[in-house]
């Protein structure tokens, strides 16, 4: 199809684009067209593929299959640099302002006007003034990068993009870290960019923002395209329901019901911690409590606060009757604040499988055996000497329990597959004999077989009387495993779902902060948990 070269023509087109990461398919034959000068939003759940799509358009990722066309011409980008030469710039979530440089210097970083190797300061100032005027920004060019708020850093990124003659700017969650007035200002900036002819691709979690701002919306689900439609035809509700209804790819093990007289093993009362506000929750013997919410909603921060990896500033955490930590804000010494450590939590039976296997879990260069026995060495030693026979046997047993077969415990843990590395972390914590297990995204980046094995393991552990707090971005597995679901948004628990109220719609509605979808509203409490 020949494209008319007018301003409302197709700027970028994707045809049957697919991308996999280590066997996990992130994008599956997605096709879409982005109109020049429009604001085009990409929406979907965690892991639906929207960020991947944004990165493919901007050259940060190269698709496995399929074709990217710019102005109807097929292109293959191998790096963001190549995309920039075609006028496409990505503004990532992590901003990259150099603190020691001024705003103008940041904007022209790498493309400074020069004279004999020196920066031509007057030319720099003049060009910055011109650029800022074109964009309609009031941002002093001599302000230092370190003095900038997040919103202003974003303006620097936008100006930097414009200075490189960007015709299309991909913004990944630009408003996630902004306050309300700054969000408004950024929206104005984006509208002005679009009316000036720049195409904006907006990757966003915030459906209201999308409905307000976008011209067109592309909805993704599980790596597949649901539809692309004019934003005028979409509402928050229609977008949410389009994200639902994933095919059930995995069977889940049978849950054993929790007896009403089951003891409370983990209890948090009005806990405040960095990124966590006023959270109260309890986990009972034999219960799997699912903790849902979008990435950045405070789930990991809560897990770390519960397990004493992060100090709490208010509230109490109690496990199996032992108070681990208590803190009260602004009360002085009247109520003594007690802080604690992961070591103390572990000794009282509260164990955590951290979110990032490699960063927080594994000793990558060390043998499998050492990795597994690390949290239980006290029990496996006499007078400070490790009883190696006893250790080998204990490690062998617990590895068998979690379903990892290794030819030698001496092999480096890095030689295990991702799924088995995760199981080795379960083995480490199980060997320590916990009463409560907090598992943060334990199935991330593992293949389908290993996922199923981890589901079985969690269910078995609960059946044996362990309390489990299970954090996941995958709504389906939360629904498949949990007895009860808590949903977090903005650092708070915004919904607790039981029985029939546990539906994908209810979880998503709470996570996105949208009004309830039809059905499943009974039993949903929009208060902050079950705090007394």
């Amino acid at each position, binding site marked *: 199809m020949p494209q008319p070269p007018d301003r409302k023509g197709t700027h970028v087109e994707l045809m049957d684009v697919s991308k996999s990461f280590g066997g996990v398919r992130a994008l599956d034959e997605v096709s879409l067209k982005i109109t020049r000068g429009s604001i085009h939003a990409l929406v979907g759940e965690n892991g639906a593929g929207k960020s991947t799509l944004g990165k493919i358009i901007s050259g940060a990722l190269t698709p496995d299959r399929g074709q990217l066309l710019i102005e109807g011409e097929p292109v293959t980008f191998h790096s963001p640099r190549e995309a920039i030469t075609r006028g496409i710039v990505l503004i990532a979530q992590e901003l990259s302002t150099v603190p020691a440089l001024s705003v103008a210097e940041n904007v022209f970083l790498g493309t400074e006007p020069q004279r004999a190797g020196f920066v031509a300061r007057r030319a720099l100032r003049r060009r910055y003034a011109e650029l800022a005027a074109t964009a309609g920004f009031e941002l002093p060019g001599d302000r230092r990068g370190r003095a900038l708020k997040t919103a202003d850093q974003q303006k620097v990124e936008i100006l930097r993009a414009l200075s490189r003659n960007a015709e299309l700017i991909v913004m990944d969650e630009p408003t996630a870290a902004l306050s309300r007035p700054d969000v408004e200002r950024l929206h104005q900036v984006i509208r002005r960019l679009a009316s000036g002819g720049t195409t904006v691709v907006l990757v966003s979690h915030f459906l209201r923002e999308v409905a307000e701002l976008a011209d067109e919306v592309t909805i993704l689900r599980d790596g597949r395209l649901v539809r692309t439609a004019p934003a005028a035809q979409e509402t928050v509700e229609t977008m949410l329901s389009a994200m639902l209804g994933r095919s059930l790819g995995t069977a889940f093990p049978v849950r054993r019901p929790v007896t009403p007289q089951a003891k409370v093993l983990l209890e948090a009362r009005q806990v405040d911690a960095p990124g966590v506000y006023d959270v109260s929750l309890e986990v009972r013997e034999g219960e799997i409590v699912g903790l849902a919410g979008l990435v950045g909603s405070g789930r990991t921060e809560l897990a770390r606060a519960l397990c004493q990896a992060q100090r709490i500033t208010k509230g109490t955490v109690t496990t199996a009757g032992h108070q681990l930590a208590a803190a009260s804000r602004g009360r002085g010494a009247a109520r003594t604040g007690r802080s604690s450590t992961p070591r103390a939590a572990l000794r009282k039976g509260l164990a955590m499988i951290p979110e990032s296997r490699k960063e927080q879990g594994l000793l990558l260069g060390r043998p499998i055996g050492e990795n597994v026995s690390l949290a239980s060495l006290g029990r496996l030693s006499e007078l400070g000497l490790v009883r190696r026979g006893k250790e080998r046997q204990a490690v062998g047993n617990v590895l068998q329990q979690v379903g990892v*077969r290794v030819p030698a415990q001496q092999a480096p843990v890095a030689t295990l597959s991702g799924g088995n590395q995760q199981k080795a972390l379960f083995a480490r914590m199980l060997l320590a004999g916990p009463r409560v297990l907090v598992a943060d995204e334990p199935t991330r980046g593992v293949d389908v077989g290993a996922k199923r094995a981890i589901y079985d393991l969690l269910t078995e552990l609960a059946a044996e009387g362990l309390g489990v707090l299970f954090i996941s971005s995958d709504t389906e597995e939360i629904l498949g495993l949990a007895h009860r679901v808590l949903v977090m948004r903005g650092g708070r628990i915004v919904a607790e779902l039981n029985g029939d109220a546990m539906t994908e719609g209810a979880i998503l509605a709470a996570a996105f902060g949208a009004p309830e979808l039809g059905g499943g509203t009974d039993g949903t409490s929009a208060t902050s948990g079950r705090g007394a």
Partner: protein
Amino acid sequence: MDQPDIAQAPTPAPASRNQRLLPPAQLLSRLSRAGILYPFIVLFIVLSVWSGPFFTKVNLLDILDQQASTLIIAAAGTLVVVAGGIDLSVGAVYALAGVTAAHLALFTSPTVAIVAGIAVGLGVGLVNGVIVTAFRINALIATLAMSFVVSGLASLVTGGNLVIDYARPGFADLARSSFLTVNTSTWTMLAVVVALAVVLGRTTAGRYIYASGSNAEAARLSGVRVQGIKTLTFVLSGGAAALGGVIDASRVLSAQASNGETTLTFTVLAGIVVGGTSILGGEGAMWRTVIGVLFIALIGNGFDLLGLNPLYEQIALGGILLLAVGADAWSRLRQN
């Protein structure tokens, strides 16, 4: 799933060597894991063949005796490096402990002098540990700064003079008496190296040292007191540096504030790294350090015995150090 889920073949025990041909990349990575061992054996054989006086009891025991203090300090330094730290103050502590003991030996019993010298080192090590863990100051900078402070203290003790203990021959017993024809300084070195090898390889503390250096956050979440473990390694390092300083002061019955200093610090560090202990922490072993220190000593000894220009010794040493660090960086790159 009958096949174990392993992405790559595990390392066989060092005893069973290449039964079959390996792909070059794997062979290289295995060689780099064995590290300096093969070059050490080759150098040892070459020197034995080329130089008559090399392979004699006198020369070999002499090398060990000369390296006694370096090996003691490097053995404890290995714990620091494996735990993810570095101790640049050992040269200064060596000097301070030497002059303290030599000075005290002038008017108290040798035992009191020796104990006091070692206590000074343990104290400096504790300060190092606290600065690095509690105040979260980079170990490189913290111990570098401490080395200036400690050097200054050593000069204060001596007033800039050489402390001479010729009138107190009892002080020499620590290094100069012999047992089974081997000097006590060598025996002390053997005892310290074996003891620290057991600590690193067999005890829970050793496991925690590896864990702290390999992934401090993972260790903390697994209930390891990472800060305590790191502090312990600095205390041991300070104590070992002091023991080395006291032994050498006892050997020559004198000490001065400029003893050791940076040359010793870097010889120790070079020995640890040449042996194949990773400067980034989490990997390493005591036998590696012993081989690394002795390898550097053999090069020096070989240059002496063969009458080569000692200028080339330094150049060779620098090249070997770069190779060792390069091999470590390369094997890490492959691991990720």
